[in-house]
């Protein structure tokens, strides 16, 4: 090896230092805070963890949050997959226009997008007024402050995070593979199921991980659309940290939450990798 490449790892030093200083160190502080037994932070104990994990209400909030993420991610996938496919197959000019339209929501603040949804979903909102006018319903449907409402909004708000990785994956699939599959006698569905779908799995996994992580931690959308009766972990943490001034408990919740989300993310990744191994094997 030439001497020059020996030092290349040093290029990663700035970002490593940045991460150590602004991510790892605060996380360490968070962990230490979570080990205090009372809000005044005097004695060390694991009380906050047993308090969170030993209570059915708290565990319920954790499970609800993880499930909320799964629901929103699935809706995102169902909506995003076909759309990404259409964009990938479109003519170049149409394609750049469609990509622009997909990215457009990312250029507005999430608070603004979520408030727009309040106007759409409200009892006197656009959706209810339209359904009433068309005669599909007799009285307004409750959408705001319900879980389906939150899932709907999360799916829309996070959709670009699903479409972009899928799009990259679709574009990388060699179009000749589909032709080859057709030449060998496979129909369109069979080609999709045996060739396209398995090859797109890495994109699906990447999109799902991004959307999932964004959905479970979406404090703004969860609180504005969900209200105070639907409590998910981010709101619960916020209440403990600011409303109740109980930092150790809030810190313990965030540590547990981080590992729980990490676990789901690892599962999604494993699913993406495992299936791919099958295809190539």
């Amino acid at each position: 090896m030439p001497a020059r490449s020996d030092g290349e790892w040093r290029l990663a030093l700035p970002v490593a230092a940045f991460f150590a200083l602004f991510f790892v160190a605060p996380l360490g502080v968070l962990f230490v805070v979570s080990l205090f037994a009372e809000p005044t932070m005097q004695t060390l104990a694991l009380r906050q963890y047993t308090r969170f994990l030993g209570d059915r209400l708290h565990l319920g909030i954790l499970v609800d949050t993880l499930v909320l993420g799964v629901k929103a991610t699935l809706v995102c996938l169902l909506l995003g997959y076909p759309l990404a496919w259409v964009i990938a197959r479109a003519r170049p000019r149409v394609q750049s226009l469609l990509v622009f339209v997909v990215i457009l929501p990312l250029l507005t603040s999430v608070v603004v997008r979520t408030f727009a949804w309040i106007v759409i979903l409200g009892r006197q909102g656009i959706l209810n007024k339209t359904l009433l006018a068309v005669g599909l319903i007799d009285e307004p449907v409750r959408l705001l402050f319900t879980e389906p409402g939150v899932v709907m909004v999360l799916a829309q708000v996070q959709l670009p995070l699903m479409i972009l990785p899928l799009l990259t994956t679709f574009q990388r699939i060699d179009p000749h593979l589909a032709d080859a599959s057709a030449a060998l006698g496979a129909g369109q569905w069979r080609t999709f199921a045996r060739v396209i779908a398995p090859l797109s799995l890495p994109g699906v996994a990447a999109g799902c991980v991004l959307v999932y992580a964004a959905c479970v931690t979406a404090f703004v959308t969860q609180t504005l659309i969900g209200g105070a009766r639907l409590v998910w972990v981010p709101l619960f943490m916020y209440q403990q940290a600011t409303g109740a001034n109980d930092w150790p408990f809030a810190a313990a919740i965030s540590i547990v939450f981080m590992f729980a989300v990490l676990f789901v993310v690892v599962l999604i990744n494993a699913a993406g990798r495992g299936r791919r191994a099958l295809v190539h094997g």
Partner: protein
Amino acid sequence: MTPSIDRRTFVRGGAAFAIAALTPVPASAKDQLVVATFPGTWNEVHREILAPYFQKKTNADVTQTIMLATDQVAKLAATRGQPPFDVAILDEGPTLDAVKQGVLEKYPAAKSAHFNELGPPFRNEWGPAISMQAIGLAYNPKKVKTAPRSWDDLWNPAYKGRVGLTALNSSLGMAFIVELARLKGGSESNLEPGFLALRTLLPNVGAISANLGAHSALIQQEQVDVAVHNFNFIETLKGKGVEVDWVKPETGAPAWRTNLHIVKGAQRPDLAFEYIEGHITPEVQAAMAKPPHFVIPTNRKVVLSGAIVDKVARTPDELTKLVFHDWTKINEVRAAAIERFNREIKL
């Protein structure tokens, strides 16, 4: 020759750029004060009335950031000694918390020209009460033909699914549950009767907003027709043409003082003092008390008028006789109350 940058220059340049980008910019020479403000009416009167007054008087700039009281206390406690803002605006309960946390400076009342013009209950040694917030029944007159008169009216079967409440992270939410408890035989330290009452109210509750910002939207978007809300917030909305009105409950309007404080370690305590002084002058308070904001004044020189007289109190003396709760006791049970609210008030 193609222009080229050698590796060394590139790395050095990059490092210099990164360091420059990460270095906090020192406050500019121009005088700059950073203050906290509340959402809704508060943010409007501070921007439109107090900021211009302050700028004219001191020739300094002021940046106002919107933050709930509990968020301010949490931020001040987290950044002890390096506060992100110089003036805090806190309701009674959070003020007590902030004093306990040691993040406030005592108010130099001796230097103040207006402190003694305030009603006696409004002269807090940690910072003057600049107003009072009173809560009552907000309703949509287009949807609700006979105006509600008491808290008991919230249980009216006609309001099934049409009542709006807010979570306990704001003084509004906390004051409401305390008032319910008080009326049902409990007290600030015994919220049990309040929670029992709240549970029987649930069939009527259409929505519980997670924070104050979202609470006004409930009424504006006609998601609910009757709600527990602040007097000024509703008057401000009404002034903007929203179909809404406010009624003082027969049992009295629960009220609490809102204080301005100089934060400990403030970068410009001198400007912070001037800013707070501005807020307690009769001139500024009179301007804020006008429609559409109707911010209740605490300076006795301000003549009460308009909706404040019609709906809250006729004289400065009457103002001191609204329903005041003991926030020292409330603070002791607040954490437990939030926990219980989550446990019992879920769908």
